[in-house]
């Protein structure tokens, strides 16, 4: 297995996953949710990333990650 060494990509993916979880998962009580999303940009976030990827991950352009992020907060 080859693990990507593109740290900025790893950071973007991690942030994507984080935003998806914080905004779309978790306990919801009695529908009392009003969410206003301000500009969520892609920057460094020093969380842990386990693995991984094959070489193809290195070829996923940043635009794709941004698109996924947009879907995550949509």
């Amino acid at each position: 297995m080859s693990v990507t060494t593109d740290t900025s990509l790893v950071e973007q993916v991690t942030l994507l996953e984080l935003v998806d979880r914080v905004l779309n998962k978790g306990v919801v009580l009695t529908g009392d949710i009003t969410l206003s999303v301000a500009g969520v940009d892609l920057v460094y976030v020093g969380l842990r990333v386990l693995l991984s990827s094959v070489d193809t991950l290195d070829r996923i352009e940043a635009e794709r990650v941004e698109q996924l992020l947009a879907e995550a907060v949509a």
Partner: protein
Amino acid sequence: VIHVYGFVATPADAPGVDGLCGAPLETVQVGPVTALVSRHDERPEATEEAVIRHARVVEAALSLTGAVLPARFGTGYEDDEALSRAVEPRADALHDRLGSVRGCCEFGVRVLLPENEPTPKPIGGGEYLRQRLRGRDERARLAASLHGPLGEVARESTHRVGDTGTALLQASFLVPDDAREEFERRLGRLAEEHGRLAFIGTGPWPPYSFAEAA
């Protein structure tokens, strides 16, 4: 407005980190569960900074107590009474859920197909539809063959299979601490076996995707 970060088992102290906008963390006990909250003049916006801060509080709570149910960002109440009223009917269920996620962490796995996979040209209507359906079955089979070996070592899992496009599988796994090594080994082996696919594994996360019972 009271912003809720998550729930831990009673009794609990607030973790020693700041909340959103530097607000101090407080605890609000509702029977067997305790909500971790901070108070704000206005409903906090979901900025990138706020999302990360929320996540930090959840992680700090997990380290401190060993089990946390994250609240979805945006869960806000006018006062303590409104919060208690919302939590009370669910308090026992939330407490049970805390027991289910204790000693586990969440791993996320996304699997992407290569881009620019040659797509057969659409033929006549009926044949095109048959091809589409066949393609969908194949995707489902492939996704199941990836999800299966990982799900075996997880306590619970969720997954979504993409019918079209490069996103083949998006899955989350609730993995007991003593199965983590095996889970990571299996994920690595799958990535080796399927060289043309991109595997994106992230974690360990607090159990965001398993905060609510399935």
